[in-house]
């Protein structure tokens, strides 16, 4: 690491600490919440989040919509999880009129793991960390222009070891 890099890093750390301090003072907390109003206040769907099977969870969350697989969704998720307790997932798309993005972990006790409502004009990119008990398919559904699109990938949760 060069001295210049270290210096840059040092400066950024201060900025983050400053931000944290602000958060703790309360003023920024309101702003943080206000920037995700839909996440906080959207109607909680007990039937969808409580559903124990993938198909049921999807049907409850998106009744009356048929699913179409799409290459226009970028799903960034590890093929093998480093830690099943916190699997980082990013979904993004350039599709127009995205109104919601939902993530399902097929083998989790309740597959629907997260649902984001997007206001018109939002950048359709969400990141979240999900808990996965075992190797499972991860399904991302994007609702756009009244249609439902899907991208999916298997995420392997392994005991690890014995590599190369």
């Amino acid at each position, binding site marked *: 690491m060069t001295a210049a890099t*270290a210096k840059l*890093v040092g400066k950024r750390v201060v900025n983050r600490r400053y931000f944290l301090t602000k958060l703790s003072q309360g003023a920024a907390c309101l702003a943080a919440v206000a920037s995700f109003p839909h996440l906080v206040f959207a109607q909680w769907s007990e039937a969808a989040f409580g559903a124990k099977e993938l198909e049921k969870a999807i049907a409850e969350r998106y009744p009356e919509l048929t699913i179409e697989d799409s290459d226009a969704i970028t799903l960034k998720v590890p093929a093998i999880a480093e830690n099943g307790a916190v699997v980082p997932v990013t979904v993004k798309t350039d599709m127009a009129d995205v109104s919601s993005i939902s993530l399902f972990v097929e083998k989790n006790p309740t597959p629907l793991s997260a649902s984001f409502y997007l206001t018109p004009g939002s950048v359709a990119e969400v990141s979240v960390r999900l808990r996965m008990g075992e190797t499972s398919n991860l399904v991302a559904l994007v609702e756009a222009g009244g249609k439902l699109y899907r991208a999916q990938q298997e995420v392997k949760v392994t*005991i690890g070891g014995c590599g190369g």
Partner: protein
Amino acid sequence: MNLDRREFLNLLSLAGAAGLLPGCGGDKGVAPGSESGAGLYDVLPEGDVRLLHITDTHAQLMPIYFREPSVNLGFHDALGRPPHVTGDNFLKHFQIAPGSQLAHAFTYLDFPTAAERYGKVGGFAYLKTLIDQLRGSFGSEKTLLLDGGDTWQGSGTSLWTRGKDMVGACNLLGVDIMTGHWEFTYRDSEVLENIAEFNGEFLAQNIKVKEDALFDGAPAYDEDSGHAFKPYTVKTMGGRRVAVIGQAFPYTPVANPSRFIPDWTFGINDIDMQELVDQVRATESPDAVIVLSHNGMDVDLKMASRVSGIDAILGGHTHDGVPRPIEVNNPGGVTLVTNAGSNGKFVGVLDLSFGDSGISSYRYKLLPVFANLLAEDKTMSAYIDSVRAPYQQQLAEPLAVAGELLYRRGNFNGTFDQLICDALRKVNDAEISFSPGFRWGTSVLPGQTITMEHVLDQTCITYPETYARDMTGSDIKAILEDVGDNLFNPDPYYQQGGDMVRVGGLNYRFDPLAAMSKRVTDMTLDSGEAIEANKSYRVAGWATVGSQSPGEPIWDTVATYLRDVKIANVEKRNTPVLVNGTDNPGFFE
């Protein structure tokens, strides 16, 4: 590589003609019995830039023996495709004469006899001579030396100096760029310290600082992108701009302990790779884009099919000595994929010629490093002597005599692994033992004295502690299935690049083509007694990834066993009975 069809065909024909090694004479190697390596290292200057590539040297500063695998199974797209061809199939595929020096370098065939005849391979003093020669003849200003990683681990001295002996050796060798894998089995602070001492650049596009760690002030190369290390560099060589992107081993925190490097997250991240390649192409006006990769060959081949704009992926990790690049088609053109073996046994030489729009042709050679055919570099050998001097007595301790050829490499078992498994059972009074399917570890010839150095070559890791504990039959099966899937999942992105876990005292049938959790059947103890799912068994092992085990380091266990047996022979090899695979081009036994 953006080529039109005519250029591509031309390139194909060049590859066919040029991929063979000098000394092959097109269809035959140096004649059996010929000790002369005349011509082997005369790689005539050709092209505009030369990339020299070493990888997975595993800290072997001294010349060693290293037996290539007899079993390296490939299925699905990998069936019969290098690196999944072994023995005679390998010789046929690459048109190498049986019994030749090259046949010995690239295959396990007739290993003990050929090893006696052709001598040891690798060793940094010999590597240095060869690399200097390859640089000097081409022009140093037009040559880059790339190291694919797994450099700081694999020997007693590398462990005891925490990789620093290798940083010094690589600086003397003149490594320009490296990436890593086992480097990350030292503590993160040690990794950063070693990189600071390294004269070249350490690159990795696929290692990020975790967001919460960034928040807590963990250092990063670029806090905005999250890159823990510099992702790429551009070198100007003879007026040509060559961009090199680093790709570290994607599954380091899964295959090795994450506790040493808690702030860093890895992954194949091929979406990021595409974005980076596009960015480099758009902003750096490179004449060539090269990836220095520790993905493993099958992962590199898949990545090459998905990411456009890379001219060549110089790969390692899976320790495959592959004499010719594989040309992979992707939406943007063609990408070359190579793999340059291990243990300092080979140097890859990629010469690129440029035309009006990028690369017009290439020549690739994978040169075996025969210590007998090269003079040692005095500066390097003096350095190596100084590194080893404080530990010489420990390293040289004789433990036993090898009753047969001892080696590790192979999908399911190796004779040295069987000794380790036998030692674990005996010393810990266990019914069953496990030993990880690493691909490093040098070979010992029949009749050779097994020294502590040999044992350390097989076992030297930063988490060497042993355990003996009770496991149920279903636990044991779950472990075998999990590792089996890491090796034989049909999708290379789900493979970790190691071999199957080695077992002692346990026998089973294994179907590589079956689905996860269905590959392992008919598990029995050596007595023939069937393993029961709910019954407990005493199991000994080492190299636990999750947390530190309580027992002594594995090398002490193996040394105790070897001192006791005096002559090391494998009485019973616990190699699984294969269901599917014995007719595979990657199978000989």
